[in-house]
């Protein structure tokens, strides 16, 4: 008994010592402590205030988050940001906006959810604050189109920080080896994939994020958009899944399956990135914010072998690419207890010119004129992609419609229902969602 007590005591002591020693380095290199420092002169609050920031981790978002946290944590303001993955951000956004009070004071949002939260009055309109600080923070240099993407019903609900569009990343070494050029249509992409399968030994060359509970609907929407059709029609308040292109889009997805990993319906973007890191994928199409990771040697031995291009069109006569444009920005929840003026100054400083410059090459800043073709390996592709993306659908029911048709699309892609049944179900679900959005 005495010996075991002694060992217990010794162990406890070592543990405490280790903890104490290690505490010295704990959190010393948090990304925010190595971020760019920008001017953030917010007036001192009446009492020490903590500002909680909700933003997922990605090499494109992190520079803005970290700049904000490191530059504005002073004068009795402490900004806190915890690492979180994208599904986590989605869940916590819903949770924090749901009640009369929430945990987070600054929330990362994107164009897709702005109409929904705007129409529900969950986010604070920023028009007045924008005018007030436009000159001191040079806010008018933020692209007008991107500001429009974050506006609903005339009210600006988020300050844009960056744009993300689909980029096609491909293995240049494999393409050169089998004599291929980056595909310009889905047909070319399938032919290229077949060649790679046969000649380069990569079993599942095409890598797309088709997570059955999320990303798959974005992919469907992009195909539909490339075929020239929106999810819904705003003027007639009807859904478009009775059109032939709706079924065609599903068929296109199913036609890609032989070239994709059978587990693809469990892949969100990080898993697709991993496919590219592993070298088990040769062509990936996903958001530009995920491209920088591919070029880092720390992540993969193929880092130097990737090349980038704009995504292909679905059909040879498509006007738009298989593409989507999403604007990411900072918004202020209506239920925050912190002074909204101060919060606005913080987000304004995080999208300043120096901050935007510092976010290159990982991100495509919302400030006009920051990205030239040589800013990053994928800048040229981004500049092409951004002009040829299908139009966004900023209607209050778009998010709800997307959520409702997601499981149906997944079932169709997984072969559980036929594409004919699928479009019927999608039409029903979408019509109900439009009717419910009042």
């Amino acid at each position, binding site marked *: 008994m005495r010996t075991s007590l002694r060992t217990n005591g010794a162990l406890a002591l070592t543990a405490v010592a280790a903890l104490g020693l290690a505490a010295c380095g704990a959190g010393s290199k948090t990304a925010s402590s190595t971020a760019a420092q920008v001017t953030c002169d917010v007036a001192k609050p009446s009492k020490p205030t903590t500002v909680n920031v909700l933003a997922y981790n990605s090499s494109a978002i992190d520079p803005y988050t970290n700049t904000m946290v490191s530059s504005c944590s002073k004068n009795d303001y402490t900004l806190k940001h915890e690492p979180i993955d994208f*599904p986590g951000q989605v*869940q916590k956004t*819903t*949770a*924090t*906006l*749901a*009640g*009369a009070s929430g945990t987070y004071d600054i929330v990362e949002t994107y164009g897709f959810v702005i109409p929904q939260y705007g129409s529900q009055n969950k986010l604070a309109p920023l028009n007045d604050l924008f005018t007030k600080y436009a000159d001191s923070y040079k806010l008018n240099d933020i692209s007008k189109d991107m500001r429009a993407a974050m506006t609903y019903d005339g009210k600006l609900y988020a300050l844009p920080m960056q744009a993300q569009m689909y980029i096609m990343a491909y293995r240049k070494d494999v393409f050169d080896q089998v004599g291929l050029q980056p595909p310009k249509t889905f047909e070319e992409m399938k032919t290229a994939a077949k060649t790679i399968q046969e000649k380069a030994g990569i079993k599942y060359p095409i890598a797309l994020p088709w*997570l*059955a*509970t999320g990303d798959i609907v974005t992919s469907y929407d992009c195909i539909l958009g490339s075929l020239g059709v929106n999810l819904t029609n705003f003027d007639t308040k009807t859904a478009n899944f009775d059109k032939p292109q709706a079924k065609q889009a599903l068929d296109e997805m199913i036609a890609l399956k032989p070239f994709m*990993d*059978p*587990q693809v*319906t*469990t*892949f969100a973007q990080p*898993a697709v990135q*991993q*496919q590219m890191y*592993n070298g*088990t994928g040769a062509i990936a199409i996903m958001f530009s914010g995920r491209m920088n990771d591919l070029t880092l040697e720390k992540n993969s031995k193929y880092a130097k072998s990737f090349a980038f291009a704009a995504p292909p069109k679905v059909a040879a006569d498509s006007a738009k690419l298989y593409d989507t444009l999403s604007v990411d920005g900072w918004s202020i929840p209506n239920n925050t207890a912190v002074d909204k003026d101060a919060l606005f100054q913080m987000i304004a400083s995080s999208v300043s010119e120096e901050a935007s410059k510092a976010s290159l090459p990982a991100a495509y800043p919302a400030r006009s004129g920051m990205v030239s073709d040589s800013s990053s390996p994928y800048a040229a592709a981004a500049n092409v992609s951004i002009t040829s993306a299908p139009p966004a659908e900023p209607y209050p029911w778009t998010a709800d419609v997307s959520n409702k048709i997601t*499981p149906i699309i*997944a079932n169709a892609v*997984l072969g559980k229902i036929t594409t004919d049944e699928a479009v019927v179900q999608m039409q029903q679900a979408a019509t109900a969602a439009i009717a419910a959005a009042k």
Partner: protein
Amino acid sequence: MKKREFWMLVTPSLVVMVGLLAVPLYRTIEWSLQNVNYGDPGTFIGLSNYTTALTDPRFGRAVVFTVGLTLVVTAILLVLGYLLAVAVNRLHRMRPIVLGLLLLAYVIPGLVGATMFSWLFDSNFGGPVNYLIAHVTGQDLLWFTDTWPNRVVLTLNIVWFLLPFAMLVILAGLQSVNPEVLEAAKIDGAGPFRLHWNVIIPSVSGVIGFVILISLMDVLRVFDPLVALSPQAAAIGNESIMFYIYSVAFKDGGQQLGLGSAINVLLIIIIGIMLIPSIRATAREGSR
């Protein structure tokens, strides 16, 4: 003991339990009869949450899956736990070491263990199990996309972290087997199988009942492993009832709190029903 003393000793604990166990339970039942959200007073809507839950195919699937998983895991735990207990019982000096190694799976938090488990099976992230299976059989099992392989992974994980508990409890029971009865049976010429089936197992039936009880109780409420091993649970029909409650009553900020609470109550009823035989047996044992 005098009444006053009794109550003074018991009251602090009772206050905490009533305030944080009984009252919340009552609130859940209250919520199940309302259309309510967190922080709302809620509007009474009678039993309509229950009808919604009971007519929802998703709930039915969750119940079938959870009950099936529970029965399978319990059976495996009994067999493997017994075999392991018998094997460990033969050890002498190595016993604490082997027990320690086996206990690790029980002590690690369920979520952490499930995360580690998921990396074993995830071929996109270099899972060695896939690698070995593909090497040996050339087959590629989709552990996270297909329903039944996913069920296998979930079963394996739950057995993994409950096995040490089952084994320990049965091992404890084995200590109280009467050696004289064993000797007598051996002298009578009983082979190893008869020895176990007719002599040992009946005498440890108490602990076996306990293992069944705890296993039923815990697996019916399984939640942590699904977070790591089956993020697509609903889509592939592997959603447990607790996971369903989470997505309905909390994940979206409580939009359907009333419905989630109704499912909570239904789950309590299901657990109660499945535990009745076990509780009866335990009460019988306790009063013996």
